[in-house]
């Protein structure tokens, strides 16, 4: 894992003290709320429905045990004993007191964490693949590039006041577990003639105008990626709309001027950038890369897993993924208990996962955009012991990528922007489809729920997506089918008129029944939908 150098640490420490002073000035009235709001947002502090909310950055979703433990300690000490893992691989605390915020940031700084780049119209926290470094199909570990981008983008003077927020994702394999093409810029590391470079996608995103990012460069050599991104951002910063926040994202610019024109302008800017010598020295990427060198894996380990306990065997089949090193496995920890809140974890659960990471996963864990956790380096021989501990803590649900592994934004239960509640709906769906046999029969089926058009719950990318809307003060839910955030990225299509909360659960049952009746061998729900199209599903729902 990356470790702060003295520059990183001093920057973060200075930021904490600066914010402490700003909070003090707000509490004494020296700053008005209008003056203070942009300052607190630059430190991840929002004012939400019930209280202040602090969004903590987890760069590319990677944490050490010590960092995770600190997140649990903060949840217990300053919040109401829990935190919420988000679709941006971050963590949110829902009940923060303004006066405590500087102390929390100071505590985070002791473990090389902060809340910078979690709000505002800047380049946000970089996201990546939760299997980075342990997946056999990647051409390189994407995290050194993600870390380089973090360093490049943090406090970048030119890109601190962009037309709108800007999200970048880096992956390095054909399997996309990070919704790469639904970011403002997506990078997919590829190998060509023995050299690493990146496919660059620009202009993707969800929100009220969802778009899949088009490819704008099929191979940008690794030592020029920063300059090329600088060119992409410069063109956006220059021409992105600032008159209308709903049309200010880069996707609108790329769409309005066209991909070819945007590419042309980027190339022109890039040609200029190349003359400036702004690429970071290769030695810097090498320095960062050294932090992500493969850990000291044991050799000669057994591949055997004792599957005598049927509940354990079920969990292994669903939650454990292949690791690139013999004898090791990747453990996915579900944060989707059937009656729980998607993405929520108690301080005790956070503490437990920190301990498991330290004891069994070479002191490392990951957060996924699907609001689950990952232990990336687990010996197969340790799986049963881990499962037992997860089981005791209510963290052993075996539902990865099944219909109950639902992404849900905080919705109207917590969020000031929301129009409808997402979490109770997620719970109703999970309870309707709770039977393990039924979930297994349905297979991979990604349900994603957003409580408003901002799409934090990624509903556009759900095999089944649900959008909550406000219909004259009453919650109403639009259903969409056919979305995907994976390598086969697509945007869901709305089925028709919306539903009540119970009505949408019934509608989901109708579409899944149709899928079971019509599927061909080996087809997932998404495959059957794509083969049949919307018509029969619509007929099943509306008659």
């Amino acid at each position, binding site marked *: 894992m990356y470790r702060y150098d003295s520059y990183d640490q001093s920057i973060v420490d200075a930021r904490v003290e600066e914010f402490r002073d700003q909070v003090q000035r707000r509490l004494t009235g020296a700053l008005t*709320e209008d003056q203070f709001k942009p300052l607190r947002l630059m430190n991840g502090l929002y*004012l939400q429905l*019930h209280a*202040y909310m602090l969004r903590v950055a987890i760069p590319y979703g990677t944490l050490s045990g010590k960092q995770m433990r600190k997140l649990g300690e903060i949840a217990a000490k300053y919040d109401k004993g829990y935190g919420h893992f988000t679709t941006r691989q971050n963590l949110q605390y829902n009940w923060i007191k303004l*006066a405590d915020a500087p102390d929390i940031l100071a505590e985070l700084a002791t473990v090389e964490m902060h809340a910078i780049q979690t709000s505002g119209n800047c380049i946000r926290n970089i996201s990546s693949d939760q299997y980075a470094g342990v997946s056999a199909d990647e051409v390189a570990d994407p995290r050194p590039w993600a870390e380089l981008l973090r360093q490049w983008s943090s406090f970048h003077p030119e890109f601190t006041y962009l037309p709108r927020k800007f999200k970048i994702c880096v992956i390095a394999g054909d399997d996309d577990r990070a919704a790469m093409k639904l970011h403002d810029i997506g990078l997919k590391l590829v190998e060509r003639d023995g050299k690493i470079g990146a496919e660059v996608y620009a202009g993707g995103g969800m929100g009220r105008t969802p778009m899949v990012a088009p490819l704008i460069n099929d191979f940008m050599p690794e030592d020029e990626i920063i300059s090329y991104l600088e060119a992409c951002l410069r063109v956006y910063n220059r021409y992105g709309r600032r008159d209308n926040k709903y049309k200010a994202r880069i996707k609108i610019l790329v769409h309005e001027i066209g991909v070819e024109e945007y590419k042309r302008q980027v190339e022109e800017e890039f040609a200029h950038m190349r003359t400036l010598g702004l690429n970071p020295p290769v030695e810097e990427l090498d320095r960062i890369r050294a932090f992500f060198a493969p850990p000291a894996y044991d050799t000669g380990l057994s591949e055997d897993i004792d599957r005598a306990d049927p509940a354990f065997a079920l969990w292994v089949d669903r939650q454990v993924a292949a690791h690139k090193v013999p004898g090791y496995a990747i453990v996915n920890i579900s944060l989707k208990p059937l009656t729980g809140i998607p993405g929520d974890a108690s301080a005790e659960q956070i503490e437990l996962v920190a301990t498991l990471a330290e004891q069994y996963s070479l002191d490392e864990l990951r957060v996924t955009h699907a609001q689950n956790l990952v232990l990336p380096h687990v010996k197969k021989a340790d799986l049963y012991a881990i499962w037992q501990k997860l089981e005791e803590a209510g963290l052993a649900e075996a539902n990865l990528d099944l219909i109950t592994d639902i992404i849900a934004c905080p919705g109207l*239960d917590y969020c*000031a922007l929301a129009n409808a*509640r997402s979490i*109770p709906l997620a719970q109703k769906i999970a309870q309707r489809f709770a039977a393990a046999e039924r979930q297994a029969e349905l297979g991979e089926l990604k349900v994603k729920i957003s409580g408003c058009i901002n799409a934090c719950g990624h509903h556009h990318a759900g095999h089944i997506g649900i959008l909550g809307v406000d219909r004259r003060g009453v919650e109403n839910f639009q259903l969409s089918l056919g979305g995907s955030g994976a390598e086969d990225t697509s945007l869901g299509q709305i089925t028709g008129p919306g539903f009540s909360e119970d009505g949408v659960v019934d509608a989901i049952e109708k579409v899944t029944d149709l899928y079971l009746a019509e599927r061909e061998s080996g087809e997932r729900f998404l495959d059957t939908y794509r083969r049949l199209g919307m018509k029969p599903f619509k007929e099943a729902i509306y008659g």
Partner: protein
Amino acid sequence: MKILTGNDLVSGDVIWWAGDGWSRQVGDSADVGERGDDLARTEEAALRVVGAYVIDATVSDDGVRPAHIKDRIRALGPTVRPDLMLKPNDADAGNWVI
């Protein structure tokens, strides 16, 4: 009736104007009539509230009820965490929101 709500500047707690100060219970809300915006400005300047705004509400035997579901959830707390709601012992509290 019109009532005034916002968040306590320091704690962030949802608060309701009770006529002579702020309360954490929506049931204590006072009708602010046309004075809401002026009150909001005065109270924000006094550092007692942040993000204050006026909403419509009704009053009945069950007490004061904000007109919009968003404000009813603000008044009650997250409906998915009964332990954190302002009526933790009321099994029917969630229905008040709908």
